[in-house]
């Protein structure tokens, strides 16, 4: 799974992640690979959306497919991801 960097630098974000991971292991999972989303990948996804159809990002409080977003919002997310790296 991919997370934005700021998932891990607030107490609430951490608690949410812990709840997600705990439930996952309790229910289904044996392996959880945690990746941090970086701006380079987002830029590639913007340029070649057909190769990144499954890429999910967080927009505020919910998740959505990056390639479905309007260009302005994509650029906004890329900028914020770069700033948080």
């Amino acid at each position, binding site marked *: 799974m991919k997370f934005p960097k700021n998932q891990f630098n607030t107490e*609430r974000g951490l608690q949410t992640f812990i*709840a*997600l991971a705990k*439930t996952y292991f309790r229910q289904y999972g044996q392996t959880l690979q945690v990746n941090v989303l970086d701006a380079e990948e987002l830029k590639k996804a913007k340029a070649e959306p057909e190769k990144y159809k499954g890429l999910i990002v967080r*927009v*505020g*409080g919910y998740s959505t497919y990056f390639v479905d977003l*309007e260009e302005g919002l994509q650029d906004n997310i890329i900028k914020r991801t770069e700033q948080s790296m």
Partner: protein
Amino acid sequence: MNGLIFDIQRFSVFDGPGIRTNVFFKGCNLRCKWCHNPESQENRPQLMVYQSKCVGCGKCAGICGNTFTESCTACGKCAEACEHGARKITGKEMTAEEVFSLVRRDIEFYRTSGGGVTLSGGEPLLQADFAAEVLRLCKTEGIHTAIETAACVPQSAFEKMLPFLDLVLCDIKCIDEKLHKELTGVSNRQILQNAEWLKTTGKSIIFRMPVIPGLNDGETEKVKEFAGDFPLELMAYHVTGNSKYENLGRDYSLSELPPAPRDFMERLAEKTGAEYHFTGM
């Protein structure tokens, strides 16, 4: 029993505690100038067109020429015909059981995180019987329940929910009645009346105020005073919904307004004693 729903969002974290599923009801009796879910306003299915996906093949035009006119019935034929995902119908009739069966998928995540279901929209209390039935079903499996409401509905709508409801997230846009009418199209008299009554019911309440710089931010202190001993959360104006107006063939009156800056919100929260959580938008 059916309700008109336009989205069901899993893993929501800013609409109540823990990990939640947000059920978005279509239809609202306010018309807030800053609305970031314009597809939530009309209580009927609507066509949305995503120009960035359109390749200009003209298949939709071959079906009918009623896009964005009053003759469009949102029948969905043009959306079906489009092979590029550029058209979709927003708003779907669902039964309470269908909604519940989707909500209950994440029950283990609710348990671990102290989360649950939140009914939102639009205005869920405009479909009060349906909303109450969804919450009743959620309660049969011990799911924590919340609603997000603008509270501009009869008190009886609230009363239907109370037996199955854990938390009310009640929006207060501003206190000045004239300003409220200007910004949302309706008077806030019924809203404030309902809010005062809610305070006496013993239900958990979080008051929430969307802060739109230059429009209602001057009312923040008054809203905090109104909230009294109950928590008040400030929500920063954001622009992630702006493109939806175009997708609906509408203009957006606040298209030039930038999002409320984080430090502006933090200072406002500190000054008024309200809460503010940065959500990344």
